[in-house]
C-alpha cells in the first residue's frame, strides 16, 4: 500500500499501541487488563503493521518460526510454573510454594503466568493472521 497518510499515521501510532500493550501487561494487577488483553493488543499492532507495510516485511522481523517458538514458550511458562509449584511440594499452580512469606509468591507466580498468557495469545493471533493472509497466494509455507 502506498498511501502516505496511512503510512505516516501508522508510524506515529504503532509505538503507542505497543507501549499500551506493555502497560496493560504490567499494570494488570491493579487495573483492568492482563496478559490476554495485552497479547491481543500486541497482535493487533502486528496486524496493523502487516496491513500497511505488507506481510512480507512483517515476516522479516517476525518470522513464522519465531512466532511458533513464542507460542510454545508462553504455554511452557504457564505449565512450567504449575509443575514447578508441584516440585516444590504444593499442588499444580499453588504459587504459595514459590515464596512462603505472605503474598510475594502469589504476586510472582501471577506475573509469570500473565506473561505466559500474553506471549501465547500474541503469537497465536499473529500466526492465525499469517495463515489467513498467506492462503490463496503463491506461497503458503506456513506449516
Amino acid at each position, binding site marked *: 500500500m502506498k498511501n502516505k497518510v496511512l503510512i505516516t499515521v501508522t508510524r506515529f501510532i504503532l509505538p503507542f499501541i505497543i507501549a499500551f500493550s506493555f502497560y496493560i501487561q504490567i499494570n494488570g494487577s491493579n487495573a483492568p487488563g492482563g496478559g*490476554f488483553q495485552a497479547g491481543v493488543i500486541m497482535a493487533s499492532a502486528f496486524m496493523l503493521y502487516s496491513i500497511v507495510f505488507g506481510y512480507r516485511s512483517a515476516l522479516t522481523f517476525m518470522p513464522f518460526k519465531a512466532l511458533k517458538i513464542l507460542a510454545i514458550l508462553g504455554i511452557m511458562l504457564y505449565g512450567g510454573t504449575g509443575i514447578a509449584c508441584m516440585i516444590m511440594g504444593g499442588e499444580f499452580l499453588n504459587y504459595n510454594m514459590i515464596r512462603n512469606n505472605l503474598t510475594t509468591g502469589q504476586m510472582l507466580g501471577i506475573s509469570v503466568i500473565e506473561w505466559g498468557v500474553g506471549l501465547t495469545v500474541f503469537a497465536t493471533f499473529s500466526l*492465525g493472521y499469517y495463515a*489467513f493472509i498467506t492462503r490463496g497466494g503463491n506461497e503458503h509455507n506456513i506449516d
Partner: protein
Amino acid sequence: MNTTLIEYLPYILCIAIICTGLYGTTNSSNYLKKLVSLSILQSGVILFFIAIAKVKDGQIPILACLDFKQCPEQLINPLPHVLMLTAIVVGVATLAVGLALIIRIKEEYGTIEENTLIEAEQND
C-alpha cells in the same frame, strides 16, 4: 408491574439476542454468516452473564485498598467477569477454526452456500 418488567428487561433482551443468534446460525445459507451468527449467540450469552453480575450502584471490581475491612464498599460480582473472559476466548477460537474450515471448503467446492454444497456432497 412496570417496575418489575423494567427490572427483567435486560435479561429478556439478552435472551432475544441469543435467540437471534440461534435463528441466524440455523437458517443462514451462507457459511460465513452462520459463523458470525454463532458469535452473536455467544455474545448474547456473555451479555447475560455480565447482566447477572451487575449490582446497583456497585463499584467496578477493583479494591480500594488491600484490606477489605478497612475500606468496605459495594462491589460488582467479579466471578462472572472471569468466566466470560474465558468464554470470549473460546468464542474467538471457534470462530478462527471455523473460518479456516470455510476457506478450505471454498477451495474444494468453489462455494460456501449450503444448498449448493449439499448437492455437491450427494454427487460425490
